[in-house]
């Protein structure tokens, strides 16, 4: 966010003037970024037999969540970063492996991590996940912004951010391709297929960002060292006041009845162009009644 000067160090003996200067620049922000560890899509991904949940063998920080974190870091840095009191909290719900996703966010620059984990959460659908996340966000106190990626790369339903906003009673801007915050409200741009929109919402708000909004940074050496000193708080359902019966397989509002691995597509006819492949292509389409 260009144009917003960082607070200057206060002149010696004049703390009053310094304080005023900070306030005219911009209030500090407390931002929660929702992150998820997902199976690496580079490898084959599987559902496991019991409960038809995703096998999280080779899990990584969801690529789409990196854009959310980068957006949060840029907003915080434009206001003087953590030194000025801005907070970027990475919140992840999931089993032990989710810590790896949180660690990556701390290396990129998040100020602290929160890991919501409880055996009773296993098998939660979007409704149950959003219930637990809403309770966790409330547990973190007054938050200005909750930022998420545009979708997870495994469940692919995109339901959770909207359900979280509905449960928290907050305005939500989805698919933001730019995001600015000033004067207690946010302004975002959304690019849909047929139109582009400019959208405004008062804070606090929930925002999901697209992969067009920024270029996420790679953790550098300094960031990796700094991350070792940052804290990751572990929360259980009891800590956030959620009844285990409301989440997990039992508390979910949908259930998977069956799952079958689709037979892999097999290769059909492959030809090498000998000058008439375009005609053969059309012959194929005609034979398939696709013309």
């Amino acid at each position, binding site marked *: 966010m260009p144009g917003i000067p960082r607070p200057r160090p206060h002149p010696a003996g004049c703390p009053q003037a310094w304080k005023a200067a900070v306030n005219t620049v911009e209030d500090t922000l407390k931002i929660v970024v929702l992150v998820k560890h997902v199976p690496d899509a580079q490898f084959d991904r599987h559902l496991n037999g019991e409960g038809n949940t995703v096998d999280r063998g080779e899990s990584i920080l969801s690529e789409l969540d990196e854009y959310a974190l980068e957006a949060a870091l840029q907003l915080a840095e434009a206001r003087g970063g953590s030194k000025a009191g801005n907070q970027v909290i990475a919140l992840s719900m999931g089993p032990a492996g989710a810590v790896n996703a949180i660690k990556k966010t701390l290396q990129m620059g998040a100020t602290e991590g929160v890991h919501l984990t409880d055996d009773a959460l296993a098998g939660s659908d979007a409704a149950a996940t959003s219930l637990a996340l809403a309770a966790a966000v409330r547990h973190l106190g007054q938050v200005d912004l909750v930022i998420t990626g545009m979708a997870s790369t495994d*469940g692919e339903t995109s339901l959770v951010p909207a359900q979280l906003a509905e449960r928290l009673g907050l305005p939500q*801007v989805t698919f933001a391709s730019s995001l600015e915050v000033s004067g207690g409200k946010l302004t975002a741009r959304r690019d849909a297929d047929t139109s582009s929109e400019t959208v405004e919402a008062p804070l606090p708000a929930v925002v999901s960002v697209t992969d067009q909004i920024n270029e996420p940074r790679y953790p550098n050496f300094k960031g990796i060292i700094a991350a070792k000193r940052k804290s990751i708080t572990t929360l259980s359902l009891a800590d956030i006041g959620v009844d285990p019966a409301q989440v997990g397989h039992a508390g979910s509002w949908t259930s998977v*009845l*069956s799952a079958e691995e689709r037979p892999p597509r097999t*290769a059909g006819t*492959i030809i090498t162009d000998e000058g008439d492949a*375009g005609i053969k292509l059309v012959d194929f389409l005609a034979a398939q009644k696709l013309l």
Partner: protein
Amino acid sequence: MAKVLVFLDNPGAGLKKSSLELLTLARTLGESVVAVNGDVSDGVAADFAEYGVSMVLRPSARDLDDFLVAPKAAFVAAAAESAGAGIVLLDNSPEGKEIAARVGIRLNAGVITDAVGVDADGTAHKSVLAGSYNTSCKAKTAVSVVTLKANNVNPEPAVAPSAPGTSTVEVPASATAAAARITAREQKVASGRPDLTDARIVVAGGRGLDGDFGPVEELADALGAAVGASRAATDAGWISHDAQVGQTGKTVSPQLYISAGISGAIQQKAGMQTAKVIVAVNKDAESPVFEIADFGIIGDVFDVLPQATAEIRKRKG
């Protein structure tokens, strides 16, 4: 008979194919009631009658388009309650899914997205993990909310047309209070091509096009198809980001997907491997796309595509 609520947003002059698909599916599940935001034109009213809609519900507020989805979700939830609907059906667009998500919370209803079919008992069928599994799932709640992917139901008018009544549903005043407001809207120039996610045929180009989408666009126009692209092509700025098919773009399942100059890495496959028929053209015989293509051509896209385009034009006269 169970009531099924179908939500349609600003249907315009006549219902599009994906909306007719929703109405056709709704009729197989029970008595269909429609919740419409925006004007109901004569063409749309005629479609409702032809597709056997029993009742049309409209919102008390006329400014729902000034906000992002929250007030529309409040309207749909109120409409479902007033109709006593057991199933709520929406289209599978990003906005459709977002409204579904919120309606689910408002009605304490399970939400299933990306469905390709719904049985009479409410069991929905979908594919997950980029088309590598087929699953069936069901809401455990009294009401279920389902978003239906386009091109999976054949639109069929009802045996006997209906004469639907109209009624107004109160949108709670609180619905707009906590909603993001749209302050400006710029229409993009319409391409005149079908919508990528609904299209029956998609012609997509990738790195092999080397910056020139001309041959892809011409073949698409000859076939009446939508134009898609790989992430490599959209990241290079050769074509708008909206055209991206794949894990971080759109998922399509057309009758025919023609892949031109795309290697077909997993990221791209994720967005298109549920297409009924896949045709691939690529210079590199080792491209992974040939592993899933029904018809593959090892050749130069700049030779093969224009020749195919000319041949189609010739045959169509």
